[in-house]
């Protein structure tokens, strides 16, 4: 209904515009010298001022967005060891962007205002200046060289997996439209697997090789638990289409590709509890819950159930279009202390015990 009303209002605005233009056209018809349809000095002046207005609009929308929604971005509350390095690079890039944006937009719109055309004025014949062009070639070169070096260092740092750290190996297994996690068990070696070995009747849902000794103690779960402070090496697999394992709070993402195994590693640094306790997260959750209360009121008025109260949890979400229910492909991630993690993993069933014979 809202949409329909909006559209009706917009159509009325259009009609109003049309009428206004007719008036404008009639008012301008008197000047005989001007070529119809070509800007006059009056148009130049008006649009020159509008250019300054537009510059103000760009600045205002920037400020409003930063003030109102500046706390939305994932820029400082990372929960992995490499997170702060990424965030740092992000902040530096952002500062450069805002600096260049502010200046170039000013120059563009201010010049458009300042040099608005007048009859009889002559423009400056200025076709070339090697010095100027050299300056604005070299400055971007230097800035970008810095960004490239910093960026590549960070990238190598993130993508290089150090096997000597003794990471926990976890497989993330994607299918339309859910996630599974497979832990390597006591031997910390994942058993061989292929989708051709999937046997639904025997509950071998990930296609593990039943004859592989490494597979026997593997543990398959529908929740991802990680101990704080231990490096984790994820091995990603997909059984049907492309998916992407996106863990925004850990600054981690990797596609899951059928037919191959991809990998990504990180070290969680904050338990779920610790993350919930941070000031930033508390504010975010409070804000979200206020919005949910508002929404609930509307739902109750319609005779539907109210929304549950939200509590923060890390999430693994699918970030590569994968079909109809792509929008609801998620898995809860729990980061906990080493003891809690050990206790949890002990409760899970090993692969050899989960098979149905």
């Amino acid at each position, binding site marked *: 209904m809202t949409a329909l009303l*909006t*559209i009706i209002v*917009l159509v009325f605005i*259009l009609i109003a515009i049309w009428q206004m233009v007719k008036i*404008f056209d009639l008012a301008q018809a008197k000047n005989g010298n001007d*070529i*119809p*349809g070509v*800007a006059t000095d009056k148009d130049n002046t008006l649009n*020159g001022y*509008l250019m300054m207005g*537009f510059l103000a609009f760009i600045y205002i929308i920037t400020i409003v*967005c930063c003030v109102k*929604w500046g706390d*939305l*971005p994932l820029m400082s509350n990372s929960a992995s060891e490499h997170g702060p*390095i990424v965030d740092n690079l992000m902040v530096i*890039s952002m500062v450069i962007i805002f600096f260049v944006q502010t200046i170039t937009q000013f120059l563009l719109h201010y010049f*458009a205002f300042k040099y608005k*055309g007048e009859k009889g004025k*002559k*423009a400056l*014949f*200025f*076709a*070339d200046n090697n010095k100027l*062009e050299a300056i604005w*070639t070299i400055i*971007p070169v230097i800035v970008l060289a810095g*960004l490239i070096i910093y*960026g*590549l260092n*960070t*990238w*190598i740092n*993130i*993508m290089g997996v150090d096997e000597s750290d003794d990471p926990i190996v976890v497989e993330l297994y994607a299918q339309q439209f859910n996630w599974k996690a497979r832990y390597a068990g006591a031997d910390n070696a994942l058993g061989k697997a292929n*989708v*051709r070995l999937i046997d*639904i009747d025997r509950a071998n849902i990930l296609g593990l090789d039943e004859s592989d000794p490494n597979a026997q103690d593997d543990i398959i779960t529908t929740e991802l638990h990680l101990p704080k402070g231990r490096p984790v090496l994820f091995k990603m697999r997909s*059984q*049907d*289409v492309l998916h*992407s394992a*996106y863990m925004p709070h850990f600054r981690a*993402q*990797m*596609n899951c*590709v059928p*037919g*191959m195994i*991809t990998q990504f590693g990180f070290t969680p640094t904050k338990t779920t509890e610790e993350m919930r306790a941070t000031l930033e997260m508390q504010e975010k959750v409070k*804000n979200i819950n206020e919005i949910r209360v508002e929404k609930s009121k509307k739902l109750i008025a319609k005779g539907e159930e109210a929304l549950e109260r939200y509590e923060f949890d890390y999430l693994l979400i699918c*970030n590569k*279009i994968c079909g*109809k*229910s*792509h*929008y*609801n492909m998620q898995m809860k991630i729990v980061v906990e202390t080493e003891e809690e993690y050990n206790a949890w993993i002990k409760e899970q069933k090993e692969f050899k015990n989960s098979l149905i014979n």
Partner: protein
Amino acid sequence: MSAHADTHEHDDHGHHHKETFVTKYIFSQDHKMIAKQYLVTGTIMGVIGVMMSLLFRMQIAWPEEPNVLFEALLGKWAPDGVMDADIYLALVTIHGTIMVFFVLTAGLSGTFSNLLIPLQIGARDMASGFLNMVSYWLFFLSSVIMVISLFVEAGPAAAGWTIYPPLSALPMAQGGSGAGMTLWLVSMAIFIASSLLGSLNYIVTVINLRTKGMSMTRLPLTIWAFFITAVIGVISFPVLLSAALLLIMDRSFGTSFFLSDIFIQGEVLHYQGGSPVLFEHLFWFLGHPEVYIVILPAMGLVSEIMATNSRKPIFGYRAMIASILAIAFLSTIVWGHHMFISGMNPFLGSVFTFTTLLIAIPSAVKAFNWITTIWKGNLQMNPAMLFSIGFVSTFITGGLTGIILGDSALDINVHDTYFVVAHFHLVMGISALYGMFAGIYHWYPKMYGRMLNKNLGYIHFWITAVCAYGVFFPMHFIGMAGLPRRYYTNSNFPLFDDVSNVNVIITIFALIGGVVQIVYLYNFFSSMYYGKKTVQNPWRSTTLEWTTPVEHMHGNWPGEIPHVHRWSYDYSKPGHDVDFIPQNIPLKEGEEELQH
């Protein structure tokens, strides 16, 4: 080579055979008519593409609410007015396909390359009028097939405009991957054939048919842009064609180029040994140059329009050409930045980060040169000029965030979020659209012999400009909040509840911006018949197209083709009374041609 035999040729054109309605308006071989055909077809496709975006924007903003528009327009895909999740993805997919290929490639490059190349280089027509006609009709055919695919029983293609297999290859993975995807692939294959015929024609025409005196360094930047765009197209489009053909093989003939080890809906498929990553490489080898195929012609148009309306030469003509060449070269070696997290070797990621960030350098040079072009000018604020300034503004805003997305370490966290959507819509969507509008407002008198209403043009520009920022600027923030794109609804993620109000604001701006295009459409179609009659050179421009008569004629010039004596940017040259000297005016005695 430029002294094309024009003396005897114009005789043939003076009294050529009588044209029927069919040869003049339908199967025309005249480049000006073909340009108009491209423009009108592109406009129709554009209306479809934009309407789709408004539909899915309403779905994102008000996900739970039934909408009468959905019910009316989507029929069985919106039972009780609630949009189906499959059709949401289809709308997103077809919106992308139509806007990128049908509007901003064919509609933009097809229109203006056809219109301006012969007129600005001083040629009677394209090198091959027949190929040109075939090119348009193949484009038309592919448009028709794409539109037909919307009405397929199981739904149109819905795997995203990038159609990554296996999703696009397996009908059991998604309804749209059945007949809808087949039609999509057929349509695109025909489209590519059309694009290649067009591009080859543009290249040959620019190289061979320049008039006497029109050396490469006297060409307007528009022609340079169209020329290089055509070269990129010829290099990269065949790769997409091969990807599409291989995908057709996988889908219909049981090969395994892109598929391997798939278990879906309870059964193992026979595919073995293929790789979806291979498809991504092939796709983006076109897909990335494609964004330059879209933006370069817009850059060319904007350079030309800015110089004309500033009454100043374009600043740094040679640097502008050099940066077009640099962008063209780099564009073919950066495709991997779409694939940092595809599972490709991280070392390759480093290489692509390096080449990608390099592109910022020629882009920065261009932006600074445009700004310097208007410095100390005498700016004529025609609607075309406003759109050109708007182009530079959105190109900067959208381009700058490229240094985040091109940086592999940062891309990890914003990949496939709304941050990407905001980035590419500003830098190649809105910018290219502005370039196209600028071109239309500027060359409309050349196309139709009448002027567009400038006041409607002003309203069109200012509301569009505000809405474009209103839509895409806040979008960066929800992207940085981690919100993935292509989500039918975010209501399953309370984590993202705090972006829901931003989405409503974005949608409202989008609706206003979308509806205001009616002003433009009205202006465009009504001015064809009721617009004020134009004079020969309304913008007082230097280029050759304005030396042709207002009334179109086959062969462009009634007499001899004018010879060229100077570059195309002699605006406000000292020592002359008028502030523009057309290219066909010989140098005055003692006047030096600028060593630009």
